[in-house]
């Protein structure tokens, strides 16, 4: 019976001792955790850039996070979720031109334009704008959104990409995971997952505000994909290809999210 009494007297702490003990424990934890958090931040902030490939320009851990986040949010993607559309009068008369990357060659002659579509059998399907114009026209007036944060209601007309694929017998290609598109000079290129490309509001546009496209907006044929930010809406399509791997993508190589879906 003796030892418990001794222990008891030992345990009887004064108020000050109790306070000091608890302060010591909690403030030590606080400062150690703060230092760890700061160290973690330093590590992330100074983490090496990813190896340049299909994607590039981002911190390696941040790129991994972007890709993981894409996987999560693709669970919510549905072709039944449609982009909000607007009446014609709401469409901007002066449509914003934000970039001419890939369509900046001087003396470009749109009359010589031809669309190259890479088929799985290795052959290249060549189409003229008149062939594409014979397909049923789909129009869309929607709020075009840029990663920079601006948006504008715009009116586009063209052929639904899914119609395009079935009309030209490209069903086999449509079963692949990705679509790649690039400008005739190869200066701008985008990669899209097939589900977004097949979204009913994705069109190959040849008209804007009921008028034929002009060069600065991507004449004679451009991509309008409302489920993506503007960076994916390639102007002046020169080549369309299909693959099961991510095709190269201009802005994904420069630190932007590959998915960039809305």
């Amino acid at each position, binding site marked *: 019976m003796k030892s418990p009494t001794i222990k008891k007297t030992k345990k009887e702490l004064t*108020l000050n001792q*109790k*306070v000091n003990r*608890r*302060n010591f424990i*909690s*403030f030590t934890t*606080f400062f150690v*955790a*703060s230092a760890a*958090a700061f160290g973690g*931040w330093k590590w992330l902030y100074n983490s090496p850039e990813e190896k340049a490939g299909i994607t590039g*320009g*981002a*911190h390696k*851990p*941040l*790129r991994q*996070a*972007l890709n993981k*986040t894409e996987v999560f*949010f693709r669970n*919510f*993607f*549905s072709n039944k*979720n*449609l*982009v*909000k559309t607007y009446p014609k009068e709401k469409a901007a008369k002066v449509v914003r031109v934000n970039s001419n990357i890939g369509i900046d060659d001087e003396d470009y002659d749109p009359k010589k334009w031809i669309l190259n579509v890479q088929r799985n059998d290795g052959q290249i399907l060549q189409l003229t704008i008149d062939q594409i114009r014979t397909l049923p026209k789909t129009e869309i007036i929607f*709020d075009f*959104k*840029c*990663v*920079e*944060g*601006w*948006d504008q209601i715009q009116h586009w007309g063209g052929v639904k990409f899914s119609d395009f694929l079935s009309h030209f017998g490209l069903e086999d290609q449509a079963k692949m995971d990705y679509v790649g598109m690039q400008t005739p000079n190869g200066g701008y290129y985008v990669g899209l997952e097939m589900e977004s490309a097949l979204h009913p509001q994705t069109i190959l546009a040849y008209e804007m505000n009921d008028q034929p496209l002009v060069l600065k907006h991507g004449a004679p044929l451009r991509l309008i994909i*409302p*489920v993506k930010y503007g960076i994916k809406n390639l102007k002046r399509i020169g080549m369309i290809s299909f693959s099961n791997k991510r095709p190269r993508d201009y*802005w994904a190589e*420069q*630190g*932007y*999210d590959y998915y960039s*879906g*809305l």
Partner: protein
Amino acid sequence: MKEIKEKHTLVMRWTHWVNFPILTVMIWSGLLIYWANDEYAITIFGHTFLRFFPDWFYKLLKIPHHLADGMAFHFLFMWFFTLNGIFYILYTLLSGEWRQLAPKRNSFKEAWLVLLHDLHIRKTSPPQNKYNAAQRIAYTSIIIMGLGSVVTGLAIYKPVQFYWLTWICGGYHVARIIHFALTLGYVLFFMIHVIQVIIAGWNNFRSVVSGFELVEEPTPIVTTIIVEESAPLVTMNLLEESTPLLTKGPEERAIFPIDEDDSNNNLL
């Protein structure tokens, strides 16, 4: 005689301090994104009073030309911000802690007294408890604001897949403005919060790290007189009348018609 009184739970302290650096990163990366299209300003009758943000501000924080970086950081730390928030809200609801946090019917009236007291216009200190009326309102608001940031954030992040969320927020533009305004709100909250914490002093600050406060031992009388909470008017009158008694001692203080555990006058 002083004694240790438990004040803040471990979960509350962790989520509070975890949130601080996360929110800092969210605000900073948000600025990197916002810079790319910095269209907001306060303009009244054609005169711009404040542009968000002036060039010196961007330069000071090295904001320009980091849109891709901003998005990458923002879309990683949004996870931590959201998960930490969900954890805190679930804990607060399930543990019953919300009872000490949520504003009561008389809180809005009482908060006014807190304000007058804090501005040194009124000498009487209003009922404190764990949180005084103004704190209940402020701390509940900041949680709702956090929720608002997540909701408006999702509304502008996936306006097609979560079109209904964008619709609830009043559309893409409104959602973006709310998302921005909430951030200004955090900064404003932070400034007042820090000033109040400094004024309230060490005992109060320590409680958010260690969890406890040192308080005078309560007198038994405190527990015997409890006025029904459902009588806010009586509360007010008692408060007025009790003013001259205040300086005398703990016995008189007990006539405050408030919860049992009132015993200190920390205002934050």
